[in-house]
């Protein structure tokens, strides 16, 4: 009954969050060592940044679709978001967080990703 995976990639990690970090978050255990505090904060901050980044990207795409932007403006927008994306990935790697780790549950709005 618990054998639920019907089809999936060999590497399932992208579909499961990082359990070690979750453990600390859940038990609300206050690990006072600087590294843990920093990591917990990082997760919080990056989750919100990721939410904003996605919202802005979607807005930008809608504007581009609207057809009122010049080629140069489109190129600039694209480059800006590309840099944001790259920077987010670097930050995630720096703190050992996967995309699923930032997959915020927005309650009635569903999940971020």
């Amino acid at each position: 009954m618990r054998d639920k995976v019907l089809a999936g990639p060999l590497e399932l990690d992208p579909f499961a969050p990082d359990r070690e970090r979750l453990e600390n978050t859940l038990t609300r255990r206050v690990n006072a060592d600087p590294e843990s505090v920093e990591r917990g904060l990082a997760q919080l901050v990056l989750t919100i940044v990721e939410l904003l980044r996605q919202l802005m990207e979607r807005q930008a795409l809608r504007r581009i679709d609207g057809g009122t932007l010049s080629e140069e403006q489109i190129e600039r927008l694209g480059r800006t978001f590309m840099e944001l994306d790259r920077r987010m990935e670097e930050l995630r790697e720096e703190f050992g967080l996967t995309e699923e780790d930032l997959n915020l549950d927005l309650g009635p709005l569903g999940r971020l990703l």
Partner: protein
Amino acid sequence: MTTTIAEQEVALVDLVDRLLGGGVVIAGDITLSVADVDLVYVGLRALVSSVATAEEKNALPAMGSAL
């Protein structure tokens, strides 16, 4: 067929999404999912607990009631 830890975790994510985010909603007198924020905690706690059951029975601290 025995499931791997990864398979269990992945299945648990989908289970929690359904149990806490789906199903018929009938206002109970007491519901374990009191607020959406609590849902996240309950969901994540369940995920960690499953790992404890599978491999680290003695290593995780005791968890209090979800309520």
